[in-house]
């Protein structure tokens, strides 16, 4: 067993009377694909926001490669190799798809420079190479505001990958995408994240996708982890069926 890249230890977080996380502990080894499931308000996105520095936990500790990142800002966490995508894609709508990628590359290359041109042939080639993995190269010149939702979701993830993260968090990558497109989209994402070393955590509601694309499932309910195991085991868990998936037992 490799050393975990991410260790969350007993995280707690509440917003006034609303408890969003209680004693949440997760270790994620390199390269593992982990899905986070749970009903709305169960604490999945809160967990993602704490790991990426957007929220500070009230208690507990987050370690990345053994280093404490609990109090770091999203910017600092990003620089240490953690990237995320968003449930609602966070893009520069007036810029082209390619320019969005170049922005990601510019931010990633340390402090952006006053003198280094943004649109060099090398930078453009590198950006297009990633776009091609997401089947987005054909959209490169189009402004983001003209694009359909599914394309935006993919671009959002493509931008997260520009910085070659070691830990990638995807917040509902297939939300807002039609049922027919979910599997093709997850196939695209899975093959685009070519590097098997990247640990991927993704928030997901579709249990068929969870079963097919994850090595491990963590189920949240009311701010707590109620199950953490292989997908079959978690989906068979009585509590998970009661609180998360809503599936009745058959016999």
């Amino acid at each position, binding site marked *: 067993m490799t050393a975990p890249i991410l260790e969350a230890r007993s995280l707690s977080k509440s917003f006034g009377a609303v408890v969003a996380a209680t004693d949440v502990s997760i270790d994620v080894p390199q390269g593992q694909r982990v899905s986070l499931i749970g009903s709305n308000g169960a604490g999945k996105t809160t967990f993602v926001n704490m790991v*990426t520095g957007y929220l500070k936990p009230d208690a507990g500790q987050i370690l990345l490669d053994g280093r404490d990142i609990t109090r770091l*800002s*999203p*910017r600092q966490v*990003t*620089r240490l190799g953690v*990237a*995320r995508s*968003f449930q609602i894609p*966070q*893009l*520069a*709508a*007036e*810029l*082209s798809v*390619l*320019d*969005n990628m*170049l*922005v*990601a*590359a*510019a*931010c*990633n*290359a340390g*402090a*952006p*420079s*006053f*003198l*280094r*041109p*943004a*649109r060099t*042939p090398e930078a*453009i*080639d590198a950006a*297009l190479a990633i776009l091609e993995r997401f*089947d*987005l*190269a*054909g*959209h*490169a*010149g*189009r*402004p983001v*505001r003209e694009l359909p939702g599914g394309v935006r979701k993919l671009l959002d993830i493509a*931008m997260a990958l*520009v*910085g070659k993260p070691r830990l990638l968090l995807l917040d509902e990558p297939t939300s807002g995408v039609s049922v027919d497109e979910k599997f093709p989209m997850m196939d695209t994402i899975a093959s685009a994240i070519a590097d098997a070393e990247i640990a991927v955590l993704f928030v997901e509601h579709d249990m068929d996708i969870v079963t097919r694309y994850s090595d491990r499932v963590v189920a949240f309910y009311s701010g707590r982890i109620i199950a953490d195991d292989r997908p079959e085991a978690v989906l068979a868990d009585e509590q998970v069926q009661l609180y998360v998936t809503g599936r009745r037992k058959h016999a």
Partner: protein
Amino acid sequence: MDDTVHRHAPGRAPARRQLAAGVAAILVLMGCAFVLPRWLLFVGTMAASHGVVTLGIVLMMRGGVVSFGQGLVFAAGGYAAALAGMYWGLSDALLLVAIGGIGAVVIAAPFAPLLSRYRGIFFAMLTLALSMVLYGILVKTTALGGSDGFNLSRPTFFGIGVEADQGNFAMYLLAVAVTGLLGLAARVYFDSTRGLVALAVRENELRVEYLGASVRRLLATDYIIAAFLGGVGGALTVLALGHVEPNFSYWTTSGEFVFLAILAGHHSVAAVFVAALLLELVRSFSALYFPNTWQLALGLFLLVVIRFLPMGIGSLWSRRPAARPASTGPTA
């Protein structure tokens, strides 16, 4: 601006070509000094020096904030140059212009970290408040001439004193050269990685932070750069007028620069100077033929621009990257 996606277009260097065109334009404009009438040279000097202040606003606009208080740095630069001339006995115009820029940075820089926390109307009003505080101080400071300001003697140019009738000529050359070079530098910045990140900040700060860049540092630095540009513009104006007064920091002065920035749009550097020249020409002719109504002319002018050229007059010649249909790659 370079827009389309050319993957394999060898020998293409749009940035360099653009800069070469800029240098050529500066040289041509300087050459014009030998043929244009003297009053027009003065109008050109004013346009260049007001344009460079506006360039600072445009630079901030690209990051999504608009300063309604560039009068602060305009006045700071003007007073810094005038005081350096009066108390230190300096007379070299280029040196005084540099002192103007630096003086404005010294005044503005302490506020940059505070301002970088605000956006939209709050940023605009805070910058306005700062400029009005300076106005209040200047009006009350009798040592600086109070509300009348004070005059300064004619500057020298690289050690050469110029006769009265040559003053406009020399000032024009200096203003065009200095603001032209700053304009080219701005173009380099706008086309740089940092320039592109600023455009993304304008639209989505959260994402930029999540990509690892500091939005506040970027906006604070932009404010300081804009202060330098404003100070240079203030110093050039003061040297050309031979006079400085608290009105430099009054809110109507700041408003005029915002007016220019909206007129120009934030995509073209040249548009900033074209807008400034148009404004100065309208001002001169209105003052001549329709005294006291030039604000009316300006208002109508702005109305027409906003209605028909919402991206500013720069959109007449610089197409936006996104505005062009996709012209590349296999269609997915």
